[in-house]
Structure formats: C-alpha cells, structure tokens
C-alpha cells in the first residue's frame, strides 16, 4: 500500500525503494512472493518496522515508499485514499504445543468451525472485533476511525482448519530455502508434524 500522492501505481516501480514489513511474518513472505513477480530479487528492499501500525505509519509519514499490511489497516488506508499496488493471501496456521491432545484439538476446531459458519453468514456483524481491537483502536480513531461499511468483505476469507498437504509444505520449504529464510540443512519432514491435526480433523468430521 502506498500514500495517496505516491508516484507508484504498480509494483514494478518499487525497485530499491524501502517497503515496511515485519520480518519472519506474513507481511515479509507475502511481500517477497508478490514482488518477485515484478522485480529482480536484489532490487526488493524490505525494511523491518514491526507491527502493522508501525508499518502503516512509516508509510503515512513518508519514511518508506510502501508498507505491507492486513485488515483493518487496508480498509483504513483505502478510506484515506491510499493505493493498494498488489494484494496477496496466505494460509494461517494454528500452532499447538506438543502436549496438546487430539480430542482437545478436535473440540477446539469444532468450536472455531461453528464460529466460522457464523462469521461467513454475516461478516459485517462481526467487524467490530477488528475496529475495537485494543491493540489499535486508538490508532484507527486518530485517522478518523472505521465503520463496518468501510471493509471490502470478499477480502476476509475464513475457512475451517485443514492440515497442510505435503505438497504445500515442500513447496513452501523450497521457496524459503531459495530466499535464505530457513537453514537448507533442515528438512521439511523435520519441521512439520501433522500427527495431531490429522487425527483431530477426523474427530471433528465425525462429530
């Protein structure tokens, strides 16, 4: 996302220009995946700025040419006239400790799955959670605030939990190795163990 008066109108002009992300998080990886389609790798200049608010405000102040953010900062930026140059989505992950048992994980998934049904039936009804999040409510208000009508609903995609496929794990692992984001000596099989999620998915389906 870039400022309203930014000269940038598509990602191809962002070469060597600072772009605010949070390293090792979704904004970092999505930025690389999107920009590598427009720019040589060595022209992609990402800068770690931390939280979405810090990234958004660095863009707004002009410290960086662009920032990578998620909702509700996209809705706020668009309300303020900022331009989205490209947009990507990624899979969220539930990360459980090694003492999480299958039955508990399945019960959690059933509860969250029912909530996803409620959410997808009427997304606007639940957007107050994004607007009133204590992490950034004050910051949103500083820029004029948001209402549920300010959000583009198809952007909010919530689906029930499934295990990563081996193919997705392998493709992501090789992509991370190529960008130097993971030790190439590690193997995908060492990093991901879906033994609980797979059983829990079966239990959740049976419920």
């Amino acid at each position, binding site marked *: 996302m870039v400022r309203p008066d930014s000269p940038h109108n598509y990602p191809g002009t962002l070469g060597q220009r600072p772009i605010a992300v949070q390293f*090792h998080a979704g904004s970092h990886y999505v930025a690389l995946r999107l920009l590598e389609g427009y720019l040589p790798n060595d022209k992609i200049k990402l800068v770690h700025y931390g939280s979405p608010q*810090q990234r958004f405000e660095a863009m707004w102040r002009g410290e960086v040419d662009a920032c990578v953010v998620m909702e509700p900062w996209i809705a706020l930026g668009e309300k303020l006239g900022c331009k989205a140059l490209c947009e990507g989505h990624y899979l969220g992950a539930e*990360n459980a400790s090694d003492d*999480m048992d299958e039955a508990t994980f399945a019960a959690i998934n059933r*509860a969250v799955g029912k909530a996803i049904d409620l*959410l997808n039936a009427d997304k606007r009804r639940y957007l107050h*959670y994004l607007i009133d999040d204590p992490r950034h409510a004050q910051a949103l208000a500083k820029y004029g605030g948001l209402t549920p009508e300010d959000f583009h609903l198809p952007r909010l995609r919530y689906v029930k939990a499934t295990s990563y496929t081996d193919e997705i794990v392998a493709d992501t692992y090789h992509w991370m190795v190529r960008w130097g984001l993971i030790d190439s000596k590690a193997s995908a099989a060492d990093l991901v163990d879906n033994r609980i999620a797979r059983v829990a998915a079966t239990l959740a389906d049976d419920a």
Partner: protein
Amino acid sequence: MKKVVSEISGAVFSLPWLIAKDHGLFETEGIDMEFVRTRPSGAVPQTESPEEVNPILGHTAFEERRVSIYRA
C-alpha cells in the same frame, strides 16, 4: 471442562476464536478457553537484515509455555 490458554494476536487472525468465545462455543465443547493477548511491540530497530530479527516475534507466551496454542 478442559482448560486451554490461547494467545490472541491481531483480531484479523483470531476473529473466529473471538466469536467462538463470545458465543459460548468453546464451553459447548467442554473447553474453558482463556485468551492471553500479545502486546503490540514498541519501537523496534529498523533493519534490512532478517537475521537481526528473532523469528519468534511476539509469540513469547508460547515459547514460555504460558499458552498452548497460537495462530499466525
């Protein structure tokens, strides 16, 4: 009721979890769900080098075993 403590980070990631708690859906499943909110990070040193940033980011409660699940 089985007690579970979960990290809650940005609402966009945890939206179904927030709805599930407020609608009593965890309780229906026999789960006593407690949320621990991560705090937004303060000022961070800006860097162009990913090696200078701890990949665990704000998920310290999980690393310290104070929560048993988080999402990102």
